């Protein structure tokens, strides 16, 4: 178990800079999730930590060792890949023990560690099968098992659940959480799925265009997003963004003055999460229902407040609206976010 430190890490491919001056400290036993849209550099960052790519500048340290120039196998890491990356010609047992065998560990030692990992992941009955005879979920468990067997300082996960179907993904997510609690290991997890990030992470690192946008616990990011990008990325369904004005110390949406605000006058972007809009017959916002999506316990109501002012509200499913109905809403002041106008 160890800490992981990135200092001024940059990566350049030919002329394109894919990572720019990344600084991050991951505490011992922490599960950090890198999240961001595809192409934001999160997977490259993980590969830099693994040593599969060389850093252009900067340092990667694991524990107190600078590993920037060590090959992957000497860094004390293990990695779980999206496509599982099992050796197709080796059995489950062969896959689990491969790294140790290659490193020349004694047979008894290998067997003990392989059996222990198999027990954790309930793979005991599959040990002599080839990967092609396994389901997607089983393959992913073997891939995770292979990482456990190595007893690494840091576990790296590269979108490990993306190839699984939705139900299995939720199940495996819980498995990984349990595993983290059980092993107490330092883990870095890359995903583009904000739900995975929210549910798994001790801390989330939101990335865009090769830079870190914000680092924080899931709740910090949810409650206090540093900018519009983070606000839009975290939370589902996504936050509503509305063009608003600041006039004489108040936020004004269309012609409707809302709560007071200390910013100087001018255009501004108002962000309100769908779950924070409340149906309120005395509310300041009113609009026509466009689409009504009922999910049973709750409902998403798509509402047009005015020209170019559309919001989605997540309401309880008690009241059913039809397209064309008028609805009045309010948004608690403390739940509203203000961003620079873009």
């Amino acid at each position, binding site marked *: 178990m160890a800490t992981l430190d990135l200092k001024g890490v940059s990566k350049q491919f030919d002329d394109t800079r894919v990572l720019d001056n990344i600084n991050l400290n991951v505490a011992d036993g922490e599960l950090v999730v890198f999240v961001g849209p595809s192409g934001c550099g999160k997977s490259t960052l993980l*590969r830099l930590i*693994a*040593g*599969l790519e060389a850093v252009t500048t900067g340092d990667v340290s694991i524990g107190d060792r600078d590993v920037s120039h060590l*090959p*992957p*196998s*000497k860094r004390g*890491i*293990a*990695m779980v*890949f*999206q*496509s*599982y*990356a*099992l*050796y*197709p*010609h080796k059995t489950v047992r062969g896959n689990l023990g*491969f*790294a140790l065998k*290659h*490193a020349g560990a004694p047979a008894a030692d290998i067997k003990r560690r392989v059996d222990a990992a198999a027990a954790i992941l309930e793979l005991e009955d599959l040990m002599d099968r080839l990967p092609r005879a396994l389901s997607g979920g089983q393959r992913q468990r073997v891939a995770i098992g*292979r990482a456990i067997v190595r007893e690494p300082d840091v576990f790296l996960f*590269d979108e490990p659940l993306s190839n699984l179907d939705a139900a299995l993904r939720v199940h495996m997510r819980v498995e990984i959480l349990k595993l983290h609690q059980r092993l107490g290991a330092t883990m870095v997890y890359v995903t583009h799925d904000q739900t995975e990030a929210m549910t798994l992470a001790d801390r989330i690192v939101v990335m865009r265009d090769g830079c870190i946008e914000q680092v924080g616990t899931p709740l910090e990011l949810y409650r206090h997003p540093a900018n519009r990008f983070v606000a839009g990325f975290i939370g589902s369904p996504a936050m509503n963004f509305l063009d608003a004005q600041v006039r004489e110390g108040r936020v004004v949406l269309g012609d409707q003055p809302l709560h007071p605000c200390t910013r100087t006058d001018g255009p501004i972007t108002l962000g309100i999460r769908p779950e924070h809009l409340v149906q309120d017959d005395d509310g300041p916002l009113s609009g026509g229902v466009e689409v009504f999506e009922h999910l049973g316990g709750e409902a998403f109501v798509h509402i047009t407040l005015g020209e170019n002012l559309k919001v989605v509200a997540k309401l309880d499913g008690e009241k059913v609206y039809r397209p064309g109905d008028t609805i009045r809403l309010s948004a608690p002041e403390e739940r509203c976010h203000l961003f620079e106008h873009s």
Partner: protein
Amino acid sequence: MPWRKRTTTGQALSAAAIHGVLLAWCALALFPLYLVVINGAKSRRAIFNDPLKLPTSDTFSAKGYASVVGNSEFPLYFGNSLVVTSVSLLLILLLGAMAAHALSEYRFRGNTLLGLYLIVGIMVPIRLGTVALLELMVNLNLTNTLTALILVYTAQGLPVAIFIFTEFLRAVSREIKDSARIDGLSEYRIFFEVVIPLVRPVIATVAVFSMIPIWNDLWFPLILAPGQETRTVTLGVQQFIGQYTVDWGAVLAALSVAVLPVLVMYIIFSRHLIRGITAGAVKG
């Protein structure tokens, strides 16, 4: 196909027509082969009197096959062809896979250019260099050696092999190789222990595609190694036909024997063949 289930007379007719066309072409494709194989096992008189008939107990004669196998030269030719074809094939597969692996796996300056250079031989036949090639072999003292043929066939087979392997390897996920790297394997062991097992399905395709032109080639044996000791089966049969035009049984038997290894290879690997073409050539 839902429409297949409700077969009507019209559909049955068109199905019959389709199979008719296909069977007719099959007959056309197989008929000459049939002639060779059956007549090789018949007496001379029977060959001429009734070329289409299967050998009966009256007309059966193994003399043709016997004279081929008993012919002191024919086994030699056969051995030459086997050596040339198998060694070339081995080199093509090994060196081709190695080069394709490097081209598809590593980023380095000139990668694309080298890749193009290595496959340009698909479009520019090596035969065009025959004049200089013969001179080169003379200078290297390699004329009338099997080595000369092996070197030329390897060079000739590499572009297609590299092309097909590269297309295939590009489609293979990089993650498994990265995983091996994390497990501490050297780049060489990654190639032999991870990549080679991965390309096994296309190896068959590349092998068949590379083997046929080598086994059947007439041009290079004729020019680089026409000597008695180094004759390949194809060249041998070609000369044999000239010598023994009277001994029809022997000639026909020789033809059958010359065809055999390719047929065996093909029948073993034919299932992989289409998969290989679909993976490689079509994308080009």
